């Protein structure tokens, strides 16, 4: 007759509590300690980076809308590339060294490649670890991922006395963050011409980068976005 203690499940459960009975994975204490120490050591080494202080910022480190604070972002992001795949404008790119070596291949926005589509929240929807939070569209449209600046040395109405309002026309915020100032300037042949020079309102700009993306000056545009003013980071601000 079978005893109850012969039951396979029961004996299997017991085998977890009897040291020496089950098979072991012998890694060697020294190896385990070395591996752990390497992990902790690398973590310490990565803090030796000015940006890790939380007081120094990289203007090119523009994270997708809904991204959490940089320290938490780096502890959450698993660099899976879901956001890069889903981004409809191809703006989300694997980072190089913008966030240090430890941030390699995490997502950053490159406004020369694409821009952040105003009516889109897909990167937040697909992120499996909530490094990018899923936000309702209305909320996302108020999130600043950066701030746009006019480069007066390159912008056509400023630098070359030529008419251009491409950035103002593309600006997607309900009240346009880019406004133009009509001003009379002297062109190359000495004629007085009227141009519209763009300005950016930091209160309204969300840093979507469509101005930079559409600027006719392709290689280094006359208007560009940097990370300052991003909602996720209370330190990286320009307005007091």
């Amino acid at each position, binding site marked *: 007759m079978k005893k109850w203690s012969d039951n*396979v*499940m029961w*004996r*299997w459960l017991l*085998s977890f509590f009897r040291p*020496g*009975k*089950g*098979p072991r*994975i*012998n*890694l060697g204490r020294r*190896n*385990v300690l*070395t*591996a*752990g*120490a*390497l*992990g*902790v050591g*690398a*973590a310490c080494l*990565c*803090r030796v980076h000015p940006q890790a202080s939380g007081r120094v910022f990289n203007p090119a480190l523009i994270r997708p809308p809904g991204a959490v604070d940089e*320290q*938490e972002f*780096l*502890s*959450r*992001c*698993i*660099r*899976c*590339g*879901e956001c*890069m*795949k*889903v981004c*409809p404008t*191809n703006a989300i*790119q*694997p980072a*190089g060294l913008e966030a240090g070596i*430890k941030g*390699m*291949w*995490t997502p950053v926005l*490159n406004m020369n*490649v694409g821009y952040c589509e105003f*009516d889109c*929240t*897909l990167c937040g*929807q*697909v*992120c*499996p*670890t*909530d490094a990018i939070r899923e936000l309702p*569209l209305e909320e996302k449209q108020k999130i600043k991922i950066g701030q746009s600046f006019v480069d007066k040395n390159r912008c056509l109405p400023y630098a070359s006395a030529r008419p251009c309002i491409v950035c103002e026309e593309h600006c997607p915020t309900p009240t346009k963050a880019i406004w133009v100032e009509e001003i009379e300037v002297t062109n190359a042949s000495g004629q007085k011409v009227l141009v519209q020079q763009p300005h950016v309102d930091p209160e309204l700009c969300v840093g979507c980068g469509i101005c930079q993306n559409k600027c006719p000056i392709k290689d280094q545009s006359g208007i560009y976005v940097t990370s300052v003013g991003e909602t996720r980071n209370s330190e990286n601000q320009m307005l007091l």
Partner: protein
Amino acid sequence: MARSTRKVSAIVWLRRCIQTLCLLLFFYLFLQTAYHPINRTGGPVALFFELDPLVLAATWLAGAPVPLTLLFSLGTLGVSIFFGRWFCGWVCPLGTLHQMMTQVRGGTTASRLNRAVYSPRQRWKYLVLIGLLAGTLTGLNLIGWVDPFSLLYRSLATAIFPAFNLGSHALFAWLYESDPGLGSMRVTRVSEPVYEVLRRYLLVEGRPQYYWGILIGLVFGGILVLNLWRHRFWCRYICPLGALLGLAGKNPLLRLKKDQEACNDCRLCVAVCPAGANPDGPSDRSDAWKPAECFFCWNCESVCPKQAISFEFAVPSREHS
């Protein structure tokens, strides 16, 4: 030895079907990760990450609140306690790709044995796991570089798919323009309908391109090529998820049983083992079958000419430690 004439058991075919389905599901969800049609993706596109306990462990150890969807991965971990690394053998799409690459190189049983036998260096993956988790605990989350799903998805997204997309568009554009053929038999009569189908279901109109795509693609290709040197190199030596599942399932309820009397020591089982799990090890010795390495793929059971290997529910015998 004529491998093609050997019969493969039903359970191996079942496994191959499930593996193929999981791989296709991964690709399908990958393609659905798009603006589809209005600010929505085409389904639960992060499904595989939600089944990945390594992602859960890393997020949790990093001290951040864990998204509830990641708790699905506890199911993967739970089943692994009973059935070891079944996930690696039956589900993991990256594992399936490695398995395919492993199959690419044939050769004699002797040469296969060289690539298949257990190596003590397979313990590296546990050290990789420990190092990564220790780093995560102290504020450096590098799991994503080596997590199998992150690795596969990132490589697909930033390298393989963009290259395939660009290449296909270029190929069909060239066929259309040059239109080679004989008389009224033109290539475009075939290529254009094919292009139409591809564009509808596979390709995208935009041309996604990524910085670092080349390096990410080379790393991925390199990892695949390593399978020619050792069966499922990545899964054996490096994969931290495999290590985690192996640790969870190091004392599984389902176990390999070898009939010592019937065995004729042909070592075919070792040659077909993708995991280096010592399927021929006598169960009473230290070099016995390694449950923490085994993928439960049933190859050894299927290949054995003497039917000396079986899987059954059991516990380790009490006499041996």
